């Protein structure tokens, strides 16, 4: 579960997040829409415990994300826009390495099973990641979080640069993870993907959550209009 309560964060006098409050329940996927500099990545970095909020509380599974980051990080899976793995290792070796860093030791079969569950076919598990597409690397990234038994997934522009097929596969995977009880927060520019995947959508503008909508209540076109309306609104 993710809880952001009345959080403020400024960098050198410039407000990045302003009185932000949001909550993502277990089994729920929330999308954060916003232009560059809207505060999406700052919010995610605060949830990861890398940035301390100026005021307000950021909690992950009931624990303070900054002061108790060593505990909260154990339950967080983070998928950045570009999952940069070690190119000289295979997909399975990358997964194994990241798992071992987390203190988890899995057999070769178990590692392959995680990769397979995240949509990476058996024949590529033994290939070096330097030969992987962006989508494939993202699947390994999700497998890393999945193998860690993450309860919270934070995704920063995950669909950016993915081809439609890979993007669709990612959506399905996220739904599957939510179905298994994960709380997912996804920051994105991609209105259509967010509309398709998320249960709840928030629109961020200049660090403020200006609108919150249920995904099922709007069509992609309506969401786009709404987004443009808030983005163009200078108030």
């Amino acid at each position, binding site marked *: 579960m993710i809880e952001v309560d009345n959080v403020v964060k400024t960098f050198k006098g410039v407000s990045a997040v302003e009185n932000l409050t949001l909550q993502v329940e277990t089994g729920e996927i929330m999308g954060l829409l916003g232009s560059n500099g809207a505060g999406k990545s700052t919010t995610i*970095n605060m949830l*990861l415990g*890398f*940035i301390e909020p100026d005021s307000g509380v950021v909690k992950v599974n009931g624990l303070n994300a900054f002061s108790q980051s*060593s505990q909260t*990080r*154990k339950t*967080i899976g*983070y998928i*950045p826009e*570009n*999952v*940069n*793995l*070690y190119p*000289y*290792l295979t997909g399975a*070796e990358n997964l194994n*390495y*990241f*798992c*071992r*860093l*987390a*203190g988890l030791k899995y057999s070769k079969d178990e590692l392959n099973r995680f990769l397979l569950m995240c949509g990476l076919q058996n024949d590529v598990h033994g290939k070096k990641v330097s030969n992987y597409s962006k989508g494939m690397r993202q699947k390994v*990234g999700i497998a*890393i979080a999945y193998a*860690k038994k993450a309860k919270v997934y934070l995704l920063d522009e995950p669909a950016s640069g993915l081809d439609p097929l890979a993007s669709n596969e990612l959506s399905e995977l996220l739904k599957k993870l939510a179905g298994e009880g994960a709380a997912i927060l996804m920051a994105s520019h991609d209105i259509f993907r967010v509309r398709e995947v998320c249960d709840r959508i928030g629109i961020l503008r200049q660090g403020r959550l200006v609108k919150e909508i249920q995904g099922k209540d709007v069509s992609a076109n309506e969401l786009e209009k709404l987004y443009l309306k808030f983005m163009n609104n200078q108030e």
Partner: protein
Amino acid sequence: MRDIIKNEWYYLIRNRVLQIVSIGFIFILSLAVYLGEIQSDNQRKQYDVSKKQLRDSWESLDSISPHGAAHYGTYVFKPTNLLSSLDEGINSVAGNVLRVEGHVQNEIVYSESSQMQAVSKFGKLKSSLLLQYVLPLFLLFLAFNSVSSEKQSGRLKLLVLQGERPVKLIMGKVISVWLYGIILMIATVVVHFILNFSTFSTEMAGRLLFFCLSYGMYYFIVSGLTVYFSARWKNATVALTSMLGIWILWTIFLPSIVLSTVDNWHKLPSRNTFQTAMKEDRSKGIDGHNPKDERGEKLKEETLKKYGVDSLIQLPINFDGIRMQADEEYGNKVWDKHFGGLRSVLEKQKKCYQIAGTISPFIALQNTSMGFSGTDNFHHQEFLIQVEDYRRRFIKSLNDEHAFGGSKTGDWSWYAQNDFFKSIPDYEYYSQSLSTVLPNYFLDFIVLIAWTTIVGLLLFFGIKNMRIV
């Protein structure tokens, strides 16, 4: 930590360019040791042949006065040192051959550089050059991007999210780069060991151990500092530039600046001044060849009194031998005074140079590397002292034979027998034991330990609050 090191090594092992560079490096290092060994071996053989020839001609001396034999003299060759193929130190410039004769302490001559134009012009492929300059530079290039690339790619975030502490990640990187340097160094030492297997001794093993420890610490300092910069600076280029600057300062500028400064602080006399001063002091003593010399007269009176006779002709011995020995002993005192002064200046210079290790660990490394290889100035001076000691015993034997061998004063036509010349032992070099040598490099060793500790602490505390995003 083991997983981190293993992962870093996958990169080193699976990168084709690095594979080729590493193999090339090991080959060049081995070649340098091999060439050094061949040179030492050739030198050894040449010296053995020359030594045997000289000894044969000495032992075949017959029908010559002992004093004539003192002027005939002999030559002493500086033996190749224990680990000279790893670091030849000052050997190529310090000279190898010393003429031993009566009345005079000659200077050592025939340095390798003075006889090989190519060597004096371009230097030569030396393992010390590779181990001290090239290998650390290579480690620097391996490490400068190690953390900044993780930061820039966002991988550091993923790694930290796995619960790994940044300090551990960074130490893992330092150790893997350091291990790379250690392996290349060990490869060099192994080649040396194989080439010297037949003469390998515990003394050599001890020296090798300290040699490796010194290099091990220096490589840790270079690797650690480079990784530290890589972690602290946002940009890899800045990290590389900073570390290259430090490397240039440590290895090129500071040693030269320190050397010039120390040279100014503790000035050594010029060769001409030194020799003129020696000559002047020597002229104040007994002239071994001048029976009318004033001091000689005094010695004559004392000798006559000792034997209870009135004239030299009544002496049962040859006073010429006694006078020449007294002349030698006076000359020895003069040499001790001037050479002692020289040594004391050299000692002061050495101390200053050792202290300079606090601003450049490279200086400390150079000192220990040459020291444990037995090729530094300390070992050279010890050789000169041993030779002078031998010269004194050698000349004293000849003077004593002249004085007490059966001849009478003024009898310059008296000849010693061949058996006597055979009985004079040949020069034998006694290498300095590690326990004798060790205190001389204690300060350098402490300096290296201090630098290693400082870099270790810097990594531990300086990385603690490193920004991940």
